[in-house]
């Protein structure tokens, strides 16, 4: 116990001396988490600019434009511009879509032939284009049903029957657990764990890596009375506590921020997140033990963890990825935890439903820390492994 206390004291006095490492341990995560939440705090894309080119200039075309303007996500840019000017504005990113009402629109509506509206979107800016398209197709559908209904009434059909005729099947479409769709829940709440996943690895690689770099590994082990188990647990404990406390704050904050989106038990969620953080620490330990080089360990940990969100399947689903990418995703703790996030926290599944990702995380923790421990004990305490830059 004395060995553990001494080792822990040694870690804490290092943090006291090294302001950079102290900031990395304590300050970095709160700063980045608040920043990420702040970016997405609006929740939904809003007022995306769309140019309107109205070649028809009739009461029907103006009616439709007014209806479209009422959609919350978009902001129509009026003014008498021609199509070339509108496309130019699209290229200059003043607008992200151009809605063209062709000449003869009203005439077509009245003659009973389907009247076409053309929406040109900048699909390179894909969040813009998909949001705009969703709102405007909703507006077109609404206007279409209204006109169809009016027309059927003119032909002597009662309004109820007319509605069933204009729209015999109505579609009630909602995203579950995330009505909106709310990007705070979709992105902020999944990007923040991705940052925990990165920082956990950086912290462990830093804590062990610097002992190897500075040639103090021997002293580190001696302080723990030559027990690597004690030396490692005292080393990991400070930031293990810090990141898991921050994880708890993250979970509690998001739960109260979007209570309608989350139905799981937050204590269980936190426990699974502790497991993910631990698996990430174990992976970091393996990386630094295998490289025994602070700089190389950080580079590899960065390569492994920094693009993890792209591979995790949260934004772009795993099923749509090539096999090689799916294999890579499967060796990232984040992938498995986000599965737990979706099933346990959002869908409210019982713990038994997520035994598979839990077992994988646990296996990662055991195998990586075991292997890392063995590599460290075997190679890390020989002076020839020290000082590599």
């Amino acid at each position, binding site marked *: 116990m004395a060995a553990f206390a001494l080792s822990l004291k040694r870690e804490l006095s290092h943090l006291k001396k090294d302001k950079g490492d102290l900031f990395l341990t304590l300050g970095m995560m709160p700063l980045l988490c608040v920043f990420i939440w702040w970016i997405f705090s609006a929740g939904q894309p*809003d007022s995306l600019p769309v140019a309107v080119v109205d070649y028809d200039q009739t009461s029907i075309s103006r009616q439709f434009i007014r209806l479209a303007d009422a959609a919350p996500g978009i902001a129509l840019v009026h003014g008498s511009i021609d199509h070339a000017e509108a496309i130019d504005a699209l290229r200059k990113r003043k607008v992200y879509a151009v809605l063209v009402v062709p000449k003869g629109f009203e005439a077509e509506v009245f003659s009973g032939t389907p009247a076409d509206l053309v929406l040109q979107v900048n*699909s390179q800016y894909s969040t813009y284009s998909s949001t705009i398209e969703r709102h405007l197709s909703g507006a077109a559908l609404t206007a279409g049903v209204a006109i169809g209904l009016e027309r059927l009434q003119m032909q002597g059909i009662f309004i109820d029957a007319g509605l069933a005729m204009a*729209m015999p*099947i109505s579609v009630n479409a909602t995203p*579950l657990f995330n009505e909106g769709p709310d*990007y705070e829940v979709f992105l902020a709440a999944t990007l923040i764990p991705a940052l925990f996943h990165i920082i956990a690895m950086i912290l462990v690689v830093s804590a062990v890596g610097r002992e190897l770099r500075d040639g103090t590994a021997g002293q580190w082990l001696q302080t723990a009375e030559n027990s690597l188990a004690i030396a490692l647990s005292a080393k990991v404990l400070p930031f293990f506590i810090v990141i898991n406390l921050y994880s708890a704050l993250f979970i509690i904050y998001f739960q109260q921020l979007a209570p309608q989106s989350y139905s799981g038990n937050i204590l269980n969620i936190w426990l699974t997140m502790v497991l993910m953080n631990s698996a990430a620490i174990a992976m970091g330990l393996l990386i630094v033990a295998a490289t025994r080089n602070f700089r190389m360990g950080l580079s590899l940990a960065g390569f492994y*963890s920094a693009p993890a969100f792209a591979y995790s399947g949260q934004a772009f689903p795993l099923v*749509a*990825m090539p096999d090689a990418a799916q294999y890579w995703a499967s060796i990232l703790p984040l992938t498995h935890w986000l599965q737990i996030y*979706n099933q346990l926290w959002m869908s409210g599944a019982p713990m038994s439903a997520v035994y598979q990702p839990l077992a994988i995380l646990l296996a990662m923790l055991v195998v990586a820390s075991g292997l890392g421990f063995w590599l460290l004990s075997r190679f890390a305490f020989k002076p020839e492994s020290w000082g590599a830059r």
Partner: protein
Amino acid sequence: MSIWGYSLYTWKLIFKDKGAILLLFGAGLVYSFFYPLPYHFEQVESVPTILVDQDNSHSSRALSRLLFASPNLDIKQVTDQASAIEQQLWRGDVMAMIIIPSGFHTDLLAGRVAEVQIASHGGYLLAGSKALKNATEASLMMGAAVSLQKAQSMGLSTQQAMAGLQPIRLETRSLFNPHDGYGHSIVPAVMVLIIQQTLLIGVTLLLGRQTELKQLPTGSKAYFGMLLTFTIIALLNTMYFFIVATQLQHYSKIGHFGTLLAFSIVFCLCISAFALILGRLFKTRERGLQLLLITSVPMLFVSGYSWPAESLPDLLYYARWLLPTTSGIHGFVSINQLGASLIDVWWEFGVLSTLTLVMIMVGIKLYRPQRL
């Protein structure tokens, strides 16, 4: 030593440093293949979906057939038990669900509006919206067929009946990213981030070591010598990404080379000046790796590209321009994918030029000899 002398000296330092070579030249190369890999197929082709048919009638089966034929729905299970949905969701086996409630067929016959429920798991936004779109289209298509029959049965002519159906059609045309590819949209922006981050980390690694050895070159000649070397390295990476890697990934590239080169020069000067500032502030070799690796993700999202700038809080809407990646992402995407001219990206060009000037002034001050 002259500026050229210092520039040469910096090249020599780099080629003696395996870590710096790896980050300044190797990392970009590896990432140019590694990052686009998950998006190789560009599209979400099939969304695992469960269909709950509680009506089990002639009409509901007709709708099922349409749903099975939908291009992006992968119907995993058809059942009449609503409880199956919960099980499937809990296991994470499906991302979308469609319910045809009982009474669907009788509603249609009776001339009432029949309802179909479609829902997707809100955690998977991209797959969910694809499923909603497909299922909605299938239902509306069936609706149109029913309308037509019904109107004809009420004695309206086909033409009159057609008029009651969807009198307005919205035809969407995708510009600049013709197949609506996900990778095509996101990767060109991430490339800008990779160019900046590998340079910042590589330079802070190299200079951090020099600071440890108390051999960091100082003075304005040394400053400009280093700036020259780092700018050339950044330029090599930029050209590789936006000419070679873009081509290899089959992303569209409709900009003029002259425009790309002019914008690249100011971007590379800017990130090199940025790297020199951080290289002076970080006192150890590994500090840049420790602090910068984790900042890439927030930098991407604050740029206002994949998350619309119009939805950023006001302060961030303006403050985001302090990061070179913001101008870089919008500028390079505009030039390469939207075919913009320098005039079209005058704002980004201007912001980068201003940032470069300010950062060079700060840099010269930081690298004054007496400060060591």
